[in-house]
């Protein structure tokens, strides 16, 4: 059909008639030039162009604007270049360091809970003989819940006066907690809610990886007399290392950009700014301080971008080295 992409057709046409450069020379296709190539792949380039335009407008352009705005300030309707003033302002703001400490704490706690827990739930589900499908749905169910609804549900659970969690603790004659109302427990409470909301996706990915492990490996381990933990350590983890490390990176990048959970659970800052994260601080600079602080917000966003890009590059380098080993 005219205009449709046929990889087979395209490949055949662009494949050299002979071998190497001789073939291309003999076919004389270079002489036909750019126009013929464009015509040949017109529909493919059309689709590509659409995608590039979308990326250009909605991804690259805002990124370029963010970088530019990081060095600008708007005052009385006039935008001027201010060099590194915006960066200086965020570095001078005690909340900047506070927000980074909180963000790293959230990331650490979210990894301890949100990385390990789904893996062990996946291992457990993989070992089950019955009700596997039912339990899989059950684990994934929170992911299907709108995040705002899930967060507000937890907000109710956490209420120190009439919330579910304290009711349970009272029933068990255990001491109650202030949950979101104390700087000591607010962040942990946010992490618990976030883990509950998001662990379903990671669990299913781990489960898929676990099911790809050949059964013979476990049989061989059994023959060698390996117990559950040894099998986990010497078979399961090495076999799922790729997916584990990929999810680790994705989770770090995602958890460092946490916003919705603290924003809804504690209003963003939390008691004594204990749940203020970097992305929330970006939001606060941009929208919540009654000023035209887009430049400062952009500068902080840029710092975040650099940190995450640096981390990704480091991760990439480490995993390459590990592959070479």
């Amino acid at each position, binding site marked *: 059909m005219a205009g449709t992409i046929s990889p087979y057709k395209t490949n055949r046409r*662009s494949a050299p008639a002979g071998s190497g450069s001789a073939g291309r020379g003999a076919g004389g296709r*270079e002489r036909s030039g*750019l126009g013929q*190539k*464009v015509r040949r*792949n017109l529909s493919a*380039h059309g689709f*590509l*162009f659409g995608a*590039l*335009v979308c990326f*250009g*407008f909605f991804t*690259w*352009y805002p990124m*370029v*604007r963010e970088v*530019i705005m990081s060095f*600008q300030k*708007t*005052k*009385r*309707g*006039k*935008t*001027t270049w201010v060099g590194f003033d915006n960066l200086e*302002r965020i570095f*001078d*703001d*005690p*909340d900047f360091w506070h927000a980074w400490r909180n963000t790293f704490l959230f990331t650490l706690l979210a990894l301890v809970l949100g990385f390990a827990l789904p893996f062990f739930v996946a291992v457990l589900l993989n070992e089950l003989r019955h009700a596997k499908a039912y339990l899989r749905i059950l684990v994934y169910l929170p992911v299907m819940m709108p995040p705002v609804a899930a967060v507000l549900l937890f907000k109710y659970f956490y*209420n*120190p*006066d*009439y919330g579910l969690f304290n009711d349970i603790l009272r029933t068990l004659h255990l001491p109650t907690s*202030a949950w*979101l*109302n*104390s*700087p000591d427990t607010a962040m942990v409470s946010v992490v618990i809610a976030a883990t509950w909301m998001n662990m379903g996706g990671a669990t299913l990915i781990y489960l898929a990886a676990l099911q790809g492990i050949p059964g013979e490996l476990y049989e061989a381990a059994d023959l060698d007399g390996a117990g559950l933990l040894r099998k986990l350590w010497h078979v399961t983890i090495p076999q799922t290392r790729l997916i584990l490390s990929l999810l680790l990176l994705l989770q770090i990048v995602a958890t460092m950009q946490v916003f919705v959970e603290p924003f809804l659970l*504690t*209003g*963003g*800052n*939390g*008691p*004594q*700014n204990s749940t203020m994260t970097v992305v929330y601080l970006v*939001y*606060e600079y*941009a*929208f*919540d*301080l*009654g*000023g*035209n602080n*887009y430049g400062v917000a952009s500068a902080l966003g840029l710092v975040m971008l650099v940190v995450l890009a640096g981390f990704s590059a480091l991760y990439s380098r480490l995993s390459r080295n590990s592959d070479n080993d």
Partner: protein
Amino acid sequence: MKTNGLLHRSAVAVVVAGLAFSAAACSSSGGGSSSGDGGKAGDAGAPLDPATKVTITADCQPPTTKPAERKQWDDDIAAFNKIYPNVTIKATDGSPCEEPAKFTAQLAGKTQPDLFYAYFTDTNQILDAGGAQDISAYVNEKTVPALKDIDPSVLGTLKDADGKLYGLPVTNYKMGLIYNRKLFVQAGLDPDKPPTTWAEIREDAKKIAALGNGVNGYGDYSATNQGGWHFTAELYGLGGKMLSDDGKKVAFNSAEGKQVLQNLYDMRWTDNTMGATQGLKWPDLMTQTSTDKLGMYVGAPDDITYMVQTLKGNYEDYGMGPMPGGKSALLGGDGRFFKKGSTPDQIKAGVAWVNFKYLTMGKGQFDYSRNKTDGLPVGIPQPSFFGGASLAADNTAKAASATVPVKNYAPYVSTPVPGKTEPANAQQLYKVLDAAVSAVLTDKNADIAKLLTDAESQANQVLSSLQ
């Protein structure tokens, strides 16, 4: 591969085009102001010619979920069009009229309507964004006859440092003590004599909290900058200041500032009359009061309207007293600003509409007999920006059509506390103070002196970065 080479060139072309577009967009945004400057203002002081044909856009039309207010809006537009038949007001509804995040984005994108709603505290932000038109030349006693009676401090919130006027007030409030009369009676307190000092509030709060069943004596906000807002109100009540006289430094680290935090700390931890649930933000205190779980809090008169109209409470159950301390009461409110670039006719039409709808006795929001017929409250002590003849006329008209138990607000009305406007860069200072208020309400070991010193240092840093 040749194909990749081609792709590479295409991609480069698109990226280059995108960057060129970005550069163009950046340079256009660098200029700041939009095309118009209000046009010729030679005859600016003259009222709008009734024959003028002009269209303006406006926000804050009451939503259809408030049918009485919506009907009044439509009726007022029709009545306004009888005087100015060729003025078209294209309105968009919204409730609340301003969402700060959306408003900030609108200003940045210059997509606010010609006549737009904003809080008094937004003036600096609007001017920094180059979002409003100077309307000084258009506002006088011919275009706004009640102008001479408007409280100068209220008009001052809508002016820049040079005294240029950018908006007109629509409503305002002075904060006071809102209390639940039903709980007062249950606790054996006199509902007609609310406490006027913090010592009295503490004592009354103990009696109310003693009712049990999750009832708290006193409540306060401590999140989303509202903790700082209430700190300021309570500081003003005690006679404290937020800023130094030159406005360059903060002045809240004072005896009054310490007393504000100490009061909250004592009620939270020593008396245990504020409950364990903190981090509250608007409208949590209203929700608690309307469900008879809270005895007292500091608020504005229209909180009572909200508790009745939205939360289905009863006017009979709520009273209002003067701001504790009684030195001064935080004065806030909102107005209508005029978009930068509006034509002279648009500005004149906007001024005429605001005057008709919001600033004329017996019309628009001051048509109390109509409010009574439509089931809207009459008698709430708000707005309160008029003085002189307008105030006298307002009081008479309000008393004649009162639908709410005005005696419940007698302690507030009969003890007038001078209004004091919010500080410049209010939201930035409130954010800093939020942390201090939150700390005393969530940390039993909070060090008040240190909290205030830290907040002072941080706020001064913020102010210096804004100079």
